[in-house]
């Protein structure tokens, strides 16, 4: 098939039917749960997950959980509520800022930022950014970009120590949300729905034990473009469908390509598809408006990220096999895949 811009276009009815059947089978028959908890962020991925779970399991069997914190955009909660209202599903709000404060998240973040900007304090905002690999064969060296209270923009390269501590402290947010997902899932006898799309799942753009942890991940096979297509087909509010994806993690607004992906999602999707299907860079390039050299760099970046994040996908590793359990796990996974 010739590589085209719309190569990822799905038959929405057929895909939604397959997904809803798969969710029912997985949640009810394999996991033996009555419904699903979906952590709703106000973004498109969790919106599609909530919508498709609602279609599969029924309105009363999906809980939308909102968990804002100090750095969340007010839009996130507003859009989450808009979605729950549109779908007609119950929702619950957990303000996780006090938990994060008590755990030291904000303090450890502040200490890490001060390794780069010693004068950092009240009124500053920050985010982590990566250089564009489109402009050159740049190394993925993270920078801390900050806005001072007077509005001055500053940007410095991060040391390994500052970067690791800032990421580790920030990961409290995703892990705290997951703890609350499981609290509500346990009390309602529900399963926890994970919300990564294919780009995030493939490229390791998740926190192990945080947003990477779930009982099932219904959209992990979908490219982001397909997520948008299906969300529109399922009637997700237009404001959510039209919103630029963000990480909503740091105090300064941050796009996903600034933090992790090399390109905006539509181009990134096509590069990932091209790489997965052996499409030469020279064939992908004119379709997405890049040069073949730039697409080659994106292909290399995808390979590197896939390789360096592979351990995030692994379960806890045993020193010796426990045959009875590994055979049972193999049987369950095989049954799910066949279904």
């Amino acid at each position, binding site marked *: 098939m010739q590589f085209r811009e719309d190569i990822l276009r799905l038959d929405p009815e057929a895909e939604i039917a397959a997904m809803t059947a798969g969710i029912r089978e997985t949640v009810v028959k394999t996991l033996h749960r009555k419904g699903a908890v979906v952590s709703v962020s106000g973004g498109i991925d969790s919106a599609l997950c909530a919508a498709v779970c609602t279609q599969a399991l029924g309105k009363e069997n999906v809980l939308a959980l909102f968990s804002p914190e100090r750095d969340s955009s007010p839009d996130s909660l507003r859009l989450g509520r808009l979605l729950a209202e549109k779908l007609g599903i119950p929702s619950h709000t957990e303000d996780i800022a006090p938990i994060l404060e008590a755990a030291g998240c904000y303090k450890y973040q502040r200490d890490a930022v001060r390794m780069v900007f010693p004068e950092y304090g009240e009124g500053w905002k920050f985010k982590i950014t990566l*250089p564009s690999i489109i402009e050159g064969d740049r190394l993925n060296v993270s920078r801390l970009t900050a806005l001072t209270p007077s509005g001055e923009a500053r940007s410095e390269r991060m*040391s390994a120590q500052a970067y690791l501590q800032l990421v580790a402290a920030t990961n409290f947010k995703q892990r705290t949300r997951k703890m609350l997902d499981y609290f509500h899932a346990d009390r309602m006898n529900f399963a926890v729905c994970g919300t990564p799309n294919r780009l995030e799942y493939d490229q390791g753009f998740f926190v192990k034990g945080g947003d990477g942890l779930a009982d099932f991940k219904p959209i992990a096979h979908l490219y982001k473009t397909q997520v948008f297509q299906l969300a529109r087909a399922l009637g997700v509010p237009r404001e959510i469908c039209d919103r630029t994806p963000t990480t909503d993690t740091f105090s300064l607004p941050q796009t996903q390509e600034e933090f992790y992906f090399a390109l905006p999602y539509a181009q990134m999707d096509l590069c990932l598809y091209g790489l997965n299907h052996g499409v030469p860079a020279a064939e992908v390039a004119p379709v997405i408006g890049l040069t073949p050299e730039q697409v080659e760099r994106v292909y290399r970046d995808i390979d*590197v990220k896939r390789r*360096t994040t592979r351990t995030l996908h692994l379960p806890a590793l045993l020193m010796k096999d426990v045959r009875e359990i590994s055979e049972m796990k193999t049987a369950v996974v095989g049954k799910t895949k066949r279904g």
Partner: protein
Amino acid sequence: MKHEEVSTKVHQFIRKNFLFDDTAQLGDDQSLLGSGVVDSTGILELISFLEETCRVKFEDSDLVADNFDSINKISAFIMTKLPPGKDGDHAVT
């Protein structure tokens, strides 16, 4: 500081911090990034190590894969950042 000295220090640093195995192969021309020996966190550690040990300061434009992809490339690039000294050495200031 000579090319060989830089090369030895980088070799030792990579073996100790990224390979965790004294017997693993580590060639001077081996691709560190392509082979996955040095990942995105590793590159931050390597940059900090080089700036501290060799007393150089990298500009953003220096941080391209071609300057850091092997021990030989790193050593050659460091030599270009050091001021020339006597007897073919480069001074570490």
